[in-house]
């Protein structure tokens, strides 16, 4: 134990004097958390925060006014009607407004046509900006059809001699619908996605200092000297676990703090804290040992600093891209979502989401934690095996 403590102290001293390396470990994920949380805030709101301009072109000003009233609100804002259809097309091409509803002259007459299956339903045309998110286009389309249905039902009622106003059939007034998501929010908000995501990314970046010091030790003969002093190779590897575990925990605490303070300070949302801190600590610990295992494996396999930088850096970026760190998994196509399940960063993110987002219990983090621990053990064993296979250094007894 004394030797292990000495190894930990040495590693800690070496790490604490690598100011640039420490800065990368702490500032890089913090910067990503702030920047990405703010940059993607609209995407995570499904476009709700964005006000999309629309205009209605109808020959009948009363009808136009009624349509504008019914279509406005909840993310859609009325814009002045263009002078003619050509101006409307030109405006939409420039994105101002994003949507223009063209109502034909005979629209109201068509509304009054009997619903006998022989008559043609009234025709409307919607000009749309191609840059408009598909979800918003779909939402507006549904809203237009809802208003058209309300107008048609009110026309039918009038024909039947029942006084009715179209507003009475507007979907907005049909019922009050409360949406209740179970176990926290259904999908993460930007800060809830980006804080754990970039924390995980930062944690896996310990691969850099672990491998660089290890390669320096090997190159300078320090490792060989320690082996000649009968320090087992497995202990040399374990000597790197303690300090980096502490670094990973510190990263966890500081990144949560960034989500709570820095992101709202820059105008973003505040990170909601988990109800179970013990589970959060468990997920962080499991992610940490997996990240350290990866660092040890890269360190032992790489013969030069350049190799370690490429293997560690590219490996991390690929795992992040695949694991939903850079692009949330829910926006990925199904095939990619399935493929992302092989990324350890995706397992870690599942664990963090189970705690932070869904306020889950121990059973919810069990699978990701087991996967991360199994990976850590496999990587540690692989590092020992690679070392043994190279047979350069004799194992100390």
């Amino acid at each position, binding site marked *: 134990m*004394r*030797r292990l403590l*000495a190894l930990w102290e040495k590693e800690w*001293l*070496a790490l604490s*004097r690598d100011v640039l390396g420490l800065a990368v470990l702490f500032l890089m994920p913090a910067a990503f958390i702030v920047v990405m949380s703010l940059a993607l805030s609209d995407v995570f709101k499904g476009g709700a925060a964005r006000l999309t301009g629309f205009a209605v072109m109808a020959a009948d000003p009363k009808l136009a006014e009624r349509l504008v009233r019914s279509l406005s609100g909840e993310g859609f804002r009325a814009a002045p009607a263009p002078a003619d259809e050509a101006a409307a097309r030109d405006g939409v091409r420039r994105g101002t407004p994003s949507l223009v509803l063209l109502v034909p002259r005979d629209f109201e007459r068509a509304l009054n046509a009997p619903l006998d299956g022989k008559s043609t339903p009234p025709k409307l045309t919607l000009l749309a900006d191609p840059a408009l998110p598909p979800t918003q286009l779909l939402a507006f389309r549904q809203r237009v059809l809802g208003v058209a249905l309300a107008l048609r039902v009110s026309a039918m009622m009038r024909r039947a001699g029942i006084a009715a106003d179209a507003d009475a059939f507007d979907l907005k007034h049909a019922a009050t619908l409360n949406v209740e998501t179970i176990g926290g929010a259904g999908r993460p908000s930007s800060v809830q996605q980006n804080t754990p995501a970039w924390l995980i990314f930062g944690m896996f970046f310990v691969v850099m200092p672990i491998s660089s010091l290890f390669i320096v030790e090997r190159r*300078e003969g320090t490792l060989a000297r320690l082996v000649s*002093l*009968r320090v087992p190779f497995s202990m040399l590897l374990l000597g790197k676990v303690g300090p980096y575990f502490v670094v990973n925990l510190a990263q966890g605490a500081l990144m949560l703090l960034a989500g709570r303070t820095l992101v709202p300070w820059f105008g973003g949302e505040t990170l909601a804290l988990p109800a179970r801190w013990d589970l959060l600590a468990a997920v962080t610990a499991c992610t940490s040992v997996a990240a350290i295992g990866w660092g040890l494996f890269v360190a032992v396999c790489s013969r030069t600093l350049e190799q370690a930088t490429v293997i560690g850096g590219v490996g991390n970026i690929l795992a992040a891209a695949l694991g939903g760190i850079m692009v949330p998994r829910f926006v990925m196509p199904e095939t990619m979502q399935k493929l992302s399940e092989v990324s350890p960063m995706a397992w870690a993110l599942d664990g963090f989401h189970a705690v932070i987002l869904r306020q889950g219990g121990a059973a919810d983090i069990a699978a990701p934690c087991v996967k991360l621990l199994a990976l850590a053990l496999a990587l540690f064993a692989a590092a020992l095996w690679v070392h043994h296979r190279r*047979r350069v250094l004799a194992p100390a007894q």
Partner: protein
Amino acid sequence: MGTLNLESVSFRYPGRGETVLDKVSLAIPAGGIFGLLGPNGAGKTTLISILAGQLRGATGSISAGDEPLEGLRRRRPHSLGLVPQEYAFYPMLTCAENLRFFGAVQDLAGARLRERVAAAARFARIESALSRRAGRLSGGLKRRLNLAIGLLVEPEILLLDEPTAGVDPQARAFLLESIRSLAGAGRTILYTSHYMEEVEAICDRVAIIDHGRVLVSGALSEVTRDGSGLQELFMQLTHRSLRD
């Protein structure tokens, strides 16, 4: 501890055809300094690495006195010390931190650790540099720190692999004087160097190896009996062609 005996020690690196050490037999008595000479690639560092327990897979036998060297090291793990030709310490740590670390991994602790760190620093005359980062020291101070680390546990067998490489004459003179003072008291010292005058100055026995084979071995006075110096004998045995 008695003589360090190597009998028919052979070694080849896995996956490589050539034999690095070919039936090397040497007797290195305690109480003196044994000089191991050879051109680059002769097998000196490989032999030291095998003795230090860094390389495995050598055939033949190595014993210290009556027992196999491996058995002695298992019984007394710190009976053997190595001063490698590289600066095998941590440049980002201070000299004191390096000494404390290498002492602690050799099971020194508390007052004993402090005492040994002070003694090794005093011996290598690096007391004034103890608080300085090892990476910022001069070449001579780095060599002295390297030596001090090797002496922390007072090993009975000391392997010195080119301990004076790249230092100025003053530092070399100090190092040689220090190493000479380590001989005696039953300690076995194996010393490798490219500097013939160093070996002539401090070693009482020498061996010249090349291509993994021992070309000559014995007391310095014996091997240079015909009046030629060690340098001339070395060139005669290993030839004058350049080595890659």
